[in-house]
Every structure is written in structure tokens, then in C-alpha cells.
């Protein structure tokens, strides 16, 4: 399970869900920008990273397909933010809406790092506007995954990463999340990763293993239940940074500040990336 080789013939799927509700305008704990901006940056950076991984001398090989679904940009609505819906990485490489010059750290060859300029791709802009129709967004993800599994029955299981700061406003998202997590490819069930963003500097909790670790809050507990139990390979990735992680831990971070969100997305995407041929 979770060890299918990802190749051009047997590609992998990532679906990012991003909350575009009004409260995402508030500053992200641990960051300098709004939650909407930091979350959009993190997903755009991850798309850039996937393209980087798939770049060979002759171009970008389609080891991955990506969909980004925003919800709450318009009241009660969810929609794909990338043109074409679920798209292969080669198309993303060809069509960023723009690139920005930024700095990244690269090894200097002597055990340290130095900053070099690079092009940061942008495929969608941050939006913080309305409500939180998470059920609609998950239903769109479910449709995409059903169709994906139909076409790619032996693929690495699709990975859904949901970034939100609030409570669903269109009903209980648990049933649709459960139906996604109970689908399967020959290599396992799709994984749902939920990243709850914090505005205040409240203590983050990454990869909880029991609802009792969470505050007595319906919403926090609902997100816990709609997060996958971490497969062993992901526990192995996370244990260095989160030594308290154990069997039964969920792919969930509560009250994430910027640092936890970035670590969370990194660990959530690493399993599939490490399965590239």
C-alpha cells in the first residue's frame, strides 16, 4: 500500500482545496501576510516543486496531475482555480499566470546554504471573500477522484490537501470526506489531509491521534474524523519533526501557524513524490 511507482504511464493526483472565506483576509499566525496569501503561496510553491521534480532535459514529464479547488470565493460556490480543472504538470509549467523573482536557499557545497534568485510560478491568486462551502468543494474533489480511479485503477492513491480556517457553512463535510476515503485504487485509499489555520498564536497541534487531544469543539473534532489515519511511510517522514507521532495519528494539523502549514504540505506530498520512478 502507498508504494505504487509513479510514472508517466501511471501518474499520481493531487487535489488542493483552499478556503476563500472572508476570514482568510486576517493575518496568519507566524507569517507576515494574510492566511489567504500564505495558503495560496504555499500551494503555488508546491505546484512549482512538482514541476521541478518532473523537469527533465526534454521538458516536463507528466508524473502528476493537479487540481486546485477554491471554496467561498463566491457565496456558496466552489470552483477549479486552474484552467482546465485537473491538469498535468506539463500544462502548468507552460501556463503560469505569471512568475515572480524570489530568493531560495540552495546548498553552497560546503555544508551551508546561500540565497539564489529563482522564478516563483503563480497559478492562482489569493481570495478572501465569502462563506465556507466545504461540502461543495469536497463533492467536486470526490467527482474528480472517482473519474481518476476509473482511468487509473492501479495509481498511487490520490491525495487531497484541504486548507481552511473555519467551519463548513454548507453542512457536515464528514460524510463526503468518508466516501472519498473509502474509495480505493489497487494501492490503497485516497488520503485527505486537513490543515486548519490559526489567526491567533494559539498552540498548534500536528498529527493528533485522539479526539481527546483536541479542544471540546465540534468543528475541530469533525476535521479530525475527516482526516486519514497516517500510513506508516508518512509517519516515518513526520517523526523527525514530530516525535510524538504514532500509529493512529491523523493527517491533520489544528491551529497551524505558517511553519506548521508548510511542514504539513511538505509531508503530505512527500509520499507520492518519493514514489516517482
Amino acid at each position, binding site marked *: 500500500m502507498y508504494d505504487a511507482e509513479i510514472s508517466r504511464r501511471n501518474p499520481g493526483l493531487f487535489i488542493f482545496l483552499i478556503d476563500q472565506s472572508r476570514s482568510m483576509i486576517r493575518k496568519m499566525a507566524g507569517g507576515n501576510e494574510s492566511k489567504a496569501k500564505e495558503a495560496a503561496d504555499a500551494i503555488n510553491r508546491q505546484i512549482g516543486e512538482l514541476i*521541478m521534480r518532473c*523537469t527533465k*532535459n526534454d521538458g516536463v514529464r507528466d508524473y502528476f496531475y493537479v487540481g486546485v479547488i477554491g471554496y467561498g470565493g463566491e457565496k456558496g460556490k466552489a470552483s477549479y482555480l486552474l484552467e482546465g480543472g485537473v491538469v498535468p504538470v506539463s500544462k502548468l509549467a507552460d501556463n503560469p499566470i505569471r*512568475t515572480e523573482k524570489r530568493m531560495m536557499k*540552495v546548498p553552497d*557545497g560546503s555544508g551551508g546554504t546561500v540565497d539564489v534568485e529563482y522564478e516563483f*510560478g503563480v497559478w492562482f491568486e489569493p481570495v478572501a471573500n465569502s462563506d465556507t462551502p466545504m461540502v461543495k468543494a469536497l463533492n467536486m474533489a470526490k467527482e474528480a477522484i472517482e473519474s481518476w480511479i476509473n482511468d487509473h485503477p492501479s495509481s498511487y492513491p490520490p491525495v487531497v490537501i484541504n486548507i481552511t480556517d473555519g467551519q463548513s457553512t454548507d453542512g457536515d463535510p464528514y460524510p463526503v470526506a468518508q466516501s472519498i476515503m473509502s474509495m480505493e485504487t489497487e494501492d490503497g485509499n485516497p488520503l485527505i489531509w486537513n490543515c486548519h489555520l490559526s489567526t491567533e498564536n494559539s498552540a498548534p497541534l500536528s498529527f493528533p491521534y485522539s479526539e481527546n487531544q483536541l479542544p471540546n469543539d465540534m468543528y475541530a473534532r469533525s476535521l479530525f474524523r475527516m482526516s486519514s489515519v497516517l500510513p506508516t511511510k508518512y509517519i516515518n517522514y513526520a517523526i523527525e519533526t514530530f516525535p510524538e507521532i504514532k500509529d493512529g495519528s491523523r493527517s491533520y494539523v489544528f491551529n497551524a501557524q505558517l511553519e506548521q502549514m508548510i511542514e504539513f504540505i511538505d509531508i503530505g506530498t512527500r509520499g507520492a513524490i518519493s514514489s516517482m520512478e
Partner: protein
Amino acid sequence: MIRLFHYHQPKIGNSESEYEDAFSYDTEKGLFAMADGSSESVFSNEWARSLVETFIQGKYDMKIDDMVETAVGLWRSKLPWDNMRWFVRNKIARGSMSTFLGLEIAGHEFRSVAVGDTCLFIVSSDGLKSFPVKNASEFGNTPKLIWTGNPLLRTRRSIRWANFMEGKISENDILIMATDSLAHWILKNTEHRPWKALMDHADDERDFISDLINSGYMKNDDVTFAIISLK
């Protein structure tokens, strides 16, 4: 006189342009070099080729730091800087990586330098010696590699992890250079004298190796080998 038989094929399913190993030689000078570019980095086929081409110029006398410095310049000059797409430029900032195996034969003596899991086997009446990997269990997915460094920074670096070996060979000995998948297969099957099968299948090497891969005896990877003798 040095006799050489060499062969390569790309990973099954890949085209020749996707092949990332490299082999170069100069039998007059007794120099042979093989490298296996890492598929995780971009233009690592050019990096592997730059390393082997630089080595067989014969100017470096096993001084691998100097050799690599020259090879980096050659690699950088081969990169298609004009019209480079933004994401390719991003990836180049992380440099290219490759294993390396250099061999020099002078008379009945040889010297070798290696970084990573591209191997040299010495088959003599004493049996088989392997260098630098000694046991089949040492093959993994993270071999030691020579890195170009960041081409935008041009910092000079020293090479860690280099292994050196020297010895004597006679007319009855055989030297084999091989990249990792074949080297692993050789080490797992030494008692069956696998180099003999490679030589026996000189006319249908592709079928022979493809069968080994398709039957699960060998990892599907680029395959490169050279068999060298003094006869």
C-alpha cells in the same frame, strides 16, 4: 594490447535521448571512464558525459578535484542557456549529480578512482574483486554522487567520498566496468561467472539484458558496461 568490448542500453521504456549513463575511453592512453547521471537532477546526462570526457583527456593523474572543476566548466558550456524555460532554469540552480568511475591501465598496472556505485570488477585467478562496492547489499537508491554545484554561483568545492584502488593485472585477467543495475546483478551471481554470459551474448546483448530485466533478475535502469583485457 588492450582489448575492449562495451555496450549500453537505456532503461526499458525510455529512448536513447533519455539515457543518462556515459562511457568514454582512449585505449592508446589506457584510460576508461564511466558515469551514471542521477535522474533526479536535470542535464545529468551532460554531466556524466562531461566527467568521462574530461577524465580521458588524461591530464589529471587521479586528482579528482581538478578533474571535476574542469568537467563543471565543460558541463556549463553544454547547457542550453539561450531560450531556457523558467522552470528548467530553476532546476539547474540545484546542479546536476552523477557517479563516476575512472580507470587507468599502464602496462600491467592499473589505478582507479570511484565515487558512488558504478563499479570495477577485477576477475583473476584469485577470484573476483569489486570496487568500490564490495557487497550486493550495499546497492541502494542513494549512492554517493559528484555534484556540479550551483552553476550560477561557481563556487569551488572539494570532492568527498572518492575511493581509490590500484593493483596489477595479467594477460589472463579481465576488468569489468558497470553501472549499478548490472553491477548489482554481477555481484549477486559471481559464482556463475556472469561476465562470460555478457561476452557470449555480444551479438544479442539487448535481448539478453532485457530478458534479465523482464524476469526480475535485474533492476530496470540504464545499463552500461565495458569488459577490458590485455590479450
